[in-house]
């Protein structure tokens, strides 16, 4: 019996080994397919944004394949992606990245969702010299480590709300403003905070409240009571979707009057849908908005992308999907310019990327971050009970005027 078990084990391991070695020798380009790999959060706390990311990738793969694929060496190739579920867990994500590279033989990677998971994977792709184009890790620390194989199509986190402070100063007649801020204690939100600190220094503004919100927190009444007592010119809140929803709930309940409220994650939190009119006048940082006039030949314009995405997946694309689609456009462009499947040649091509996509201009800085695309700010505006996000800054893309100051709660119906 024991012998049989042993024999069986040997047999199985032999088969596994054979399969593993065969697949790795083929995997980077299998027949007419270029195989990309991605660990993505399909379960766990990031699962909704993970799915947005995956839908964005899939949408782009389908579109590029349909429109002639990727031309390398005079031959046309199609994209294919191997996905693994990282369960929103950084350790698991790093393991899966190893597995994609070592077992599945993937030579080109797409990023996961969130800064934290991207941070977990980047050292692995760097170790094996695998070029990774990521679309959902904005933390500044990703771009200061000297990674050579990491490219991000999105603007880094510290740029998210800097514009808002400039805007507040402008509205204050060019004079410095008083800032109250509350940020969650995680890599992303703290980077947003650093951006505000820079902007405050630049404009000579003063930070009068600087609260850090713990991850578990869903009550910020104390911060808001302080805001009420100290009357700042602008209140800045960033704490992912929970922070955005909690802030609006408690600001409206406690009737906190501030002339300007700037936040992140408004669209991910479906703020205008969940809180309706209570969220009106909130100013939100966003990587992308469908009304921007960027264009490319695959998706046309932002509006067209919005329409096609809705048709395919049944909901309006959040910016997480748009930037994910853009990542594949970048890969296609790089493969064609490199005209090779050599990893280092592809990496060099990525480094010299300079293109426009429906999502925005893309050009990578020395750390791998996108330096060609500004962040935009939109403001929630309501007509009756239906609320919409209107782009108000930067002026070049603005579709509506920035409403300032926010009317007092006693004057709001």
């Amino acid at each position: 019996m024991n012998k049989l078990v042993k024999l069986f084990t040997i047999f199985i391991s032999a088969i596994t080994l054979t399969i593993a070695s065969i697949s790795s020798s083929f995997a980077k380009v299998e027949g007419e397919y270029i195989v990309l790999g991605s660990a993505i959060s399909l379960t766990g706390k990031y699962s909704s944004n993970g799915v947005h990311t995956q839908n964005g990738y899939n949408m782009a793969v389908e579109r590029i394949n349909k429109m002639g694929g990727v031309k390398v060496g005079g031959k046309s190739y199609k994209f294919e992606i191997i996905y693994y579920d990282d369960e929103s867990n950084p350790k698991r994500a790093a393991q899966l990245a190893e597995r994609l590279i070592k077992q599945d033989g993937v030579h080109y990677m797409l990023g996961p969702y969130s800064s934290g998971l991207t941070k977990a994977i980047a050292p692995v792709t760097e170790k094996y010299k695998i070029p990774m184009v990521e679309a959902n890790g904005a933390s500044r620390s990703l771009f200061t480590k000297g990674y050579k194989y990491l490219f991000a199509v999105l603007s880094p986190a510290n740029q998210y709300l800097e514009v808002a402070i400039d805007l507040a100063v402008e509205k204050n007649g060019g004079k410095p403003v008083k800032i109250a801020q509350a940020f969650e204690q995680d890599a992303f939100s703290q980077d947003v905070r650093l951006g505000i600190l820079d902007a405050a220094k630049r404009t000579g503004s003063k930070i009068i409240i600087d609260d850090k919100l713990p991850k578990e927190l869903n009550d910020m009444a104390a911060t808001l009571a302080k805001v009420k007592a100290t009357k700042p010119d602008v209140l800045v809140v960033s704490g992912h979707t929970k922070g955005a929803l909690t802030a609006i709930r408690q600001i409206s309940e406690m009737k906190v009057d501030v002339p300007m409220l700037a936040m992140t994650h408004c669209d991910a939190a479906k703020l205008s849908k969940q809180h309706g009119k209570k969220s009106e006048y909130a100013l939100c940082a966003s990587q992308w908005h469908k009304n921007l006039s960027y264009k490319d030949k695959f998706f046309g314009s932002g509006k067209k992308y919005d329409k096609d995405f809705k048709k395919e997946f049944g909901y309006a694309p959040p910016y997480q999907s748009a930037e994910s689609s853009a990542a594949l456009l970048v890969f296609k462009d790089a493969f064609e310019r490199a005209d090779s499947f050599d990893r280092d040649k592809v990496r060099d091509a990525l480094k010299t990327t300079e293109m426009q996509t429906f999502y925005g201009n893309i050009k990578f800085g020395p750390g791998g971050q996108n330096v060609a695309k500004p962040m935009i700010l939109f403001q929630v505006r309501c007509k009756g009970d239906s609320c919409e996000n209107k782009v108000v800054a930067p002026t070049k893309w603005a579709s509506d005027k920035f409403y300032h100051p926010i009317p007092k709660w006693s004057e709001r119906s």
Partner: protein
Amino acid sequence: MDFLIFKAPMLMVQASLDGILLGILFALIAYGMALQWGVMNIINIAQGDLVILGGYIAYTMYLAGIHPAWGVIVSPIIMYFVGWALYKLVINKVVDRDLFISILATFGIAIVFQQLMNFIFGADVVVAQSEYGTTMLFDNSVTLPNSKIFSAFISVLYAIGLVIYMKKSRLGRAIRATAQNARAAKILGVDTEKVYAATFGINAALCGIAGALISITLTLHPYVGLPYTVRSFMIVIVAGLGNLPAVAVSGMGLGLFEEFADYILGTEFRIGAVFMLLVFILVYRRFKLSKKREYLK
């Protein structure tokens, strides 16, 4: 350190009222925990997740166009059966084993619940709207959301109801008897198995009420249950088992403590302060106990 609160008396009032209203809600959850801890000697790690599940029931009603406040009636009824089923499936196998086994078992239940809620309701943070408005005091300088007042009021109402039920009803007496001495109660004809199932059900029902209240006062997310477990654990540690007034007082005390820690130490230490207090209380209780033993010698 920030002493703004001592300069502005209105902030002090605001903090105290916020703390007390929140504390009453915590006390309701803690009472459920104290009840099953006292009766069955089980520390339920899944307590917070039962709360969140109760919240999702109210949220589902809200999505269906029913006012979420009705959740305080519907949610406990559904949750009672959830609790009862949990007892029959898992807890009855660990109830007379040592504490460690039951902590492990309920920890497992917590994970399963989190994943199930994530699967069914999605990973988005959600809120239900009560549209109850706000009460303004002292010329608008202190604001109290009516939803928080409502939740404190409902919590008190249910707590009083439960006390009367425990005192007067047959099942209530059976539960108290089992808590005092399970073997003796069994010998005297109490069906302890039934009592255990009912206790677990009542605890889940209390969590359901608290969850429905949280859906209109705070936010819901499949993974935010643990802080509620920790808070109720702490309240029970301070108050002792089966002592409702003490639970209520220590609940409000914890609410106040949190609010003041937030103002003075900063928001980042709010939850940290709760854990520090927990350590301090555990050490203090140990110290007191050891003193007692010496005295008895």
